[in-house]
């Protein structure tokens, strides 16, 4: 029983970096911009967040610094693809590499140091409920924030007028422009929002999830986030569930190993990737729905002057 509680409650914190970064990427992609620099944005914001927490002791400032760093890097990317209309894949990879390099450079003198972790919040009364309480109501503040963000983003994209406009721009920017919308401005805002979310994810990973700085500590989580957007078929709730599943299966595989269950550890280590892909592929097996959800103009640049 304690193992199940451990896995289900721990999975929330484990999935936060994936969920935040993937949701940010989702918003950018829904507006038609494929930003492959998520890993670099997370790495840069992870080190910025860590430096600020190490210097000030404030996690709020650290997360804020991470968001600014992520947004800053994403604006460089936006300038390349929206202003100079560079190829989105190439520009994303290049900016991502820039972010990784800057992260390693800035983090040099912090290598191997640690900061204090952020205490978990015990929601009064609710956390006393057996099983459910420790799973849902003993989490850090960012976990709760993430849950709120998932709901707000899902509501915004599918139940508000600006959300509809955003999606139209991702489907067909020319038509949107002809109807009087501003594709470039909206895309800029979406990319910057994506950067901010990746920044929050990176700073969370380095200052709250594992409050230790080590070079390359993002370790591919940005790429998992990009993949989650695709496997979650561009639906926010599915992406969030995919991220949670990924975190839970990862923790379960560690717990089963320590219980001495007779499965080779390599299979266990691969299981989060395998299971998440299988589950998301199965729930999005309907190819019509994938075509409905994937933004038509994803990766295509738009010029208002033809």
């Amino acid at each position, binding site marked *: 029983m304690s*193992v199940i509680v451990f896995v289900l409650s721990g999975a929330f914190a484990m999935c936060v970096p994936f969920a935040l970064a993937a949701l940010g990427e989702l918003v950018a992609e829904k507006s038609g911009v494929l930003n492959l620099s998520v890993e670099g944005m997370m790495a840069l914001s992870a080190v910025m967040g860590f430096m600020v927490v190490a210097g000030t002791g404030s996690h709020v400032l650290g997360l804020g610094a991470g968001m600014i760093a992520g947004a800053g890097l994403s604006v460089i990317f936006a300038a390349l693809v929206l202003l100079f209309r560079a190829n989105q894949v190439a520009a994303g990879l290049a900016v991502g590499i820039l972010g990784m390099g800057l992260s390693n450079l800035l983090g040099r003198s912090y290598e191997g140091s640690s900061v204090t972790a952020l205490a978990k919040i015990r929601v009064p009364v609710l956390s006393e409920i057996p099983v459910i309480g420790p799973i849902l109501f003993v989490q850090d503040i960012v976990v709760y924030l993430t849950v709120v963000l998932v709901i707000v983003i899902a509501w915004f994209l599918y139940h508000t007028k600006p959300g509809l406009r955003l999606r139209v721009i991702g489907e067909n920017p020319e038509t949107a422009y002809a109807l009087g919308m501003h594709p470039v401005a909206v895309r800029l805002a979406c990319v910057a929002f994506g950067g901010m979310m990746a920044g929050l994810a990176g700073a969370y990973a380095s200052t709250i999830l*594992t409050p*230790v700085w080590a070079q390359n500590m993002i370790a591919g989580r940005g790429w998992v986030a990009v993949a989650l957007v695709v496997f979650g078929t561009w639906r926010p709730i599915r992406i969030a569930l995919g991220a949670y599943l990924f975190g839970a299966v990862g923790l379960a595989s560690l717990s089963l190993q320590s219980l001495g269950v007779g499965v080779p*550890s390599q299979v266990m*280590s691969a299981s989060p990737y395998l299971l998440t892909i299988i589950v998301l592929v199965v729930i999005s097996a309907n190819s019509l729905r994938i075509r409905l959800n994937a933004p038509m103009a994803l990766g295509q640049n738009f010029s208002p002057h033809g």
Partner: protein
Amino acid sequence: MHKWTSRILTTLALSVSITGTAFAEPFKIGYLLPNPVSEIGWSSELAAGGRALEEHFGDKVELQMIENLGEGPDSARVMNKMAADGVGMLILGSFAYQQEGVKLAARYPDLKVVHIGGYLQGPNFSTLTPRHYEAAYLCGMASGMATETNSLGVIAAFPLPEVLNIMNAYVLGAQRSNPDIEPVKVIWLNSWFDPANEKASTESFASQSVDVVFSLFPGTPAPVVAAEELGIYVTVTHSDNSRFAPNRHLCAGQLHFGPTLITKVQEAMDGAFQENDIFAGVQDGTIEAAGLGGPLTQAQKDEILAVQEEMRAGTFNPFTGPIAAMDGAEMIAAGAALDDGAIKGMNFLVQGINTNLPK
């Protein structure tokens, strides 16, 4: 005119004396490290070994240390450049550098190579492997003494022979100081570097009533930091991690590369470099149990250090029979002890470990 002549003469004399000192040119050493140097861990212990060289030899050596050097073509390029520039010795701190190191040592007769943590042999090439398992045995004793739940957990990367001998020694040490110890739990990370799972593994152990965690070849101090937070004890390889867990640090295998490297550099400077396969432990001053803390009483610490002294005297080998494998089969007969070759090639786990070894 006289003034000028004397000036020219002094200049000449000076330049002669400068060329004269060229005979005492420092011995150049290229020192390559795979990771950025921090205050603890593999690369930082190697860097400390470099500082020990500088302290010992002073101006007689010139150390060129390059940290955070990629393990692919990057390292090959740097090593080739250093060899071509005429360094007298290369000290290579990563497993992945050894192929290129053997090649260069064979190509340049004046170049001596010391590789740390490998297995290849060759002309002008020596390899140095620390006996991590000796300190692991001592830390195992500490863990057996400290645990109240009799439940220990090991976080390890890959099931390599070196990892298996360290894990076995740790468990044997724990069984020696605490016969009631339960089968030791193991999490294989299948990665050299995975801070999030290092931390999660520590938490997973804590949720299963493990109260001492052994972080075997840690990628980061994440397990140590997590243990302090969770209020369980932690032991670790490579470095004393007390600063990350002031209250919960139980024991660490502290490396000292200085003594062996000083010997090797001296050999090379004397033109008497030996091509050997060095397996250096407590006896050579290469490793020791450090940061003994937590709930250990002075008597318990003394007991651990007494075993360390037996190792130093060469009278105690942790792999002395009878020792049975996980399935109960006898691996080492009573009274027999494994030789270094068998320890380096270890391919079994001892009884009292609850995990699966890939076949």
